[in-house]
């Protein structure tokens, strides 16, 4: 095991010292970014006081800045954004100032960005708004995912920013990810000066054309006086109704030009009026269906978490004694230790949950969209069930599955209206039904791969690692998964009790999501421990953000489940492509030394008895840490519903050792 001796956050002044004291080659003094020099030097160079808002750790200046930032962001101050004059800044107000003011008015405390040519006017004024914390990511995709993770962990709008051209296109994966998972983010990009638009100027790309199909809405702003209105609308659209990403493209002259427009108090969007209240007649019908059902199952999705309807969900489940299944993004909507909580459903869901769905006579689908990973082959999905479908987006009703009782509305409000109409059911009335599911459950949990430390031949089992992390963090940590086997293991075995403690890229399935999203989640919820559960494939896609963790001292603990494989690809090749393992084996670096090179603590566990120690060591670090778990190379995620099959056609692991 290797531990790191220095505090992981570093102020520029301390970098040189730690480079000599720390491991060789940790950070070269010459690698200090030019903008990160001491504030005094900066001021002298620029001829006026520049405020260095880089959150270095431990320095008095950084502490003073963060204390000041907290004070300035207090609710009392939020609606009194200070003008430039009140800030003692003697220059005209420009578009970039309007952007900063708009962010502050929207309650933005932190955003994730990467500077470049056309957004430099923005970075030039950003120092005048020290209450805005800017996290310098290492790649724009990381910024978009961090905004996404921040938004999911907090329920607030996440913000990311990039320059034109490649900066903007690098955001697109993160924007698409937020679109498919209904996450409220506002992505800001710069673009070339308006007169050069359409001229193939340097770093010009038609980014609003590119983001059009993967945003809830987007804007191209060429007039600085449009900035206040556009930002007010963008945040309103991002967070209202079914949340989603909104992209704002600002030309350089919009950022630099004088701006006199005031920030509007309200937005006027006649084409955007989401239905929040469910129709009373439909709600009455739903109550009737629930009263008649003998084998009801609730299917809780991301919407329950977004609408903060977890209490209402629990009340409904308890009042009518209905077991609750979760979609992947609905994990953590109900405390998994609750007797009515079943676990998660779908392609890699628990067998007992899939059986419960398949034998249900009523499905109450709340804030979910019948994704193909949930339903499998639709004609065989829940064949006996009538379906009540509650969703805020009318386009989701009847899109993938025809339903009997559609209710368009906010899940929280619909449940609040539904609850008084639902008949109470005594636990005894449902005892036989619930007992049957419980028996299925103990059967599926008795499977030999579940909960044992060593998989085959004593090799470390991934689900054991995930389970121990959940246990060690008291099932209260925010657990952010990457995509692939690690994601399924995280959702299945970590044990979630707190709403929004599980973050996962569901719709787009974006490898590389885990680390940057955990970064955003940790910043959004500094009161909670944050673990990123990632595979060796996904981590290598966004590994550059390790440096962001160190520079900003973001205390993410990374659990790297390393099987030297693109595990889910390998699993499909084994089960579907007759063992043709093409391009699924991959090398990784020496992870502990890599962590050390980046300047964060690295630990390793290769056997089951080293797991708890490594987790404890990482948790003891004040700052980010990486634990390299060397797991079994051939462990698969079971059960598995093959593509094109239904929930009743699950592949399961063979219990016997394979014959050599």
């Amino acid at each position, binding site marked *: 095991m290797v531990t790191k001796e220095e505090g992981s956050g570093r102020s520029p002044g301390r970098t040189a010292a730690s480079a000599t004291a720390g491991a060789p080659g940790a950070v070269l003094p010459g690698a200090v970014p030019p903008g990160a020099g001491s504030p005094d030097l900066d001021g002298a160079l620029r001829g006026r006081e520049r405020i260095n808002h880089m959150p270095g750790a431990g320095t008095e200046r950084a502490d003073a800045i963060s204390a000041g930032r907290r004070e300035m962001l207090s609710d009392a101050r939020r609606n009194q954004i200070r003008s430039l004059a009140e800030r003692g800044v003697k220059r005209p107000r420009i578009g970039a100032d309007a952007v900063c003011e708009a962010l502050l008015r929207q309650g933005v405390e932190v955003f994730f960005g990467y500077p470049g040519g056309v957004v430099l006017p923005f970075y030039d004024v950003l120092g005048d708004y020290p209450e805005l914390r800017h996290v310098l990511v290492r790649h724009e995709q990381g910024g978009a995912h961090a905004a996404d993770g921040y938004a999911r962990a907090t329920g607030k709008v996440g913000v990311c920013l990039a320059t034109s051209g490649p900066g903007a296109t690098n955001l697109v994966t993160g924007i698409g990810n937020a679109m498919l998972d209904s996450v409220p983010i506002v992505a800001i990009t710069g673009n070339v000066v308006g007169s050069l638009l359409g001229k193939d100027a340097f770093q010009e790309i038609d980014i609003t054309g590119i983001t059009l199909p993967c945003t809830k*809405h987007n804007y191209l702003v060429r007039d600085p006086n449009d900035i206040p209105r556009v930002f007010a609308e963008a945040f309103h659209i991002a967070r209202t109704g079914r949340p989603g990403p909104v992209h704002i493209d600002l030309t350089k002259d919009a950022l630099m030009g004088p701006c006199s427009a005031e920030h509007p108090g309200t937005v006027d969007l006649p084409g955007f009026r989401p239905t929040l209240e469910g129709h009373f007649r439909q709600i009455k019908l739903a109550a009737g269906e629930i009263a008649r059902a003998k084998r009801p199952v609730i299917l809780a999705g991301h919407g329950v978490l977004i609408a903060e309807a977890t209490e209402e969900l629990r009340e409904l489940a308890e009042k009518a004694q209905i077991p609750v299944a979760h979609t992947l993004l609905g994990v953590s909507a109900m405390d998994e230790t609750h007797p009515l909580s079943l676990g998660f459903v779908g392609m890699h869901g628990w067998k007992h949950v899939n059986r419960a769905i398949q034998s249900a006579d009523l499905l109450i689908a709340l804030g979910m969209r019948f994704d193909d990973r949930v339903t499998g082959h*639709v004609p065989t999905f829940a064949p006996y069930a009538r379906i009540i479908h509650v969703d805020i987006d009318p386009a989701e009703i009847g899109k993938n599955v025809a339903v009997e009782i559609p209710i368009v509305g906010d899940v929280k409000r619909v449940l609040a209206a539904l609850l008084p109409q639902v008949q109470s059911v005594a636990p005894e009335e449902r005892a036989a039904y619930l007992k049957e599911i419980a028996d299925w459950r103990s059967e599926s949990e008795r499977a030999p791969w579940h909960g044992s430390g060593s998989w085959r031949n004593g090799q470390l089992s991934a689900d054991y690692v995930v389970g121990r992390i959940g246990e060690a963090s008291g099932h209260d940590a925010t657990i952010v998964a990457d995509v692939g086997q690690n994601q399924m293991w995280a959702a299945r075995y970590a044990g979630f009790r707190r709403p929004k403690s599980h973050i996962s890229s569901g719709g787009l399935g974006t490898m590389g999501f885990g680390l940057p999203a955990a970064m955003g989640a940790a910043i959004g919820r500094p009161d909670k421990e944050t673990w990123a559960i990632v595979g060796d494939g996904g981590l290598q896609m966004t590994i550059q953000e390790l440096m962001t963790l160190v520079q900003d001292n973001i205390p993410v603990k990374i659990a790297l489940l390393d099987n030297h494989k693109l595990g889910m690809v390998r699993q499909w090749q084994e089960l579907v492509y007759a063992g043709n393992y093409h391009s699924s084996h991959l090398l990784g670096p020496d992870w502990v030394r890599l962590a050390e090179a980046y300047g964060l603590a690295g630990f390793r566990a290769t056997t089951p008895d080293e797991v708890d120690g490594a987790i404890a060591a990482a948790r003891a670090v004040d700052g980010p840490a990486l634990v390299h778990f060397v797991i079994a190379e051939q462990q698969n995620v079971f059960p598995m519903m093959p593509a094109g099959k239904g929930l009743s056609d699950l*592949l399961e692991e063979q219990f016997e050792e394979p014959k050599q």
Partner: protein
Amino acid sequence: MSPTGTPGPAPEGTAHPAPAHTAPPTRALPGHGESHRHVLVAIVLNKPGVLNRVASLMRARNFNIETLAVSHTDQLEVSRMTITLRGDDVAVEQAAKQLYRLIDVLKVQDVTSDPTVEHEIALIKVRADERNRGEVLTIAEMYKARVVDLAAESLIVEATGTEAEVDALITLLRGFGIKELVRSGTVVMSRGAGSIEEAVKR
């Protein structure tokens, strides 16, 4: 690995909608009914890029627009689109709902089965000289079409009517040789006093 069937039906003794020995019923897929022509009217904000949003959405959601006519309305800030497409009722309803998700779309209405006035205009350049010009003129007259340009070897017929009427005229004129054809796409308006535009006024 062996696929193991998960028993759908519950064991005997528990209340269940279907007996265990029958094959489970099949759930119908939405949007697989009979496909026919639909006419959608969309009232949208008159802003740059709105047409692109609508077209992009229809492409991304796998709907094939047959005709699309866009114009101003009597309200400065509002434009009107008439979209015809083929699909079953559920699929077209899904298209309309997806259009509603666009922030710049104020109202979408499927007027296929409503009483409407439906028209398009076509300009048809037909090969015709003094030998057969009379025949062309007779056909045009029967369809209440006008001749708007006359040359030695050709003439241009301007026809208005429903898509079916224009189709019929074109079929007849094809025998003479059509040199050029342009159609505006259908525009449609509901009969009676009701107004889709008034319905979206703030």
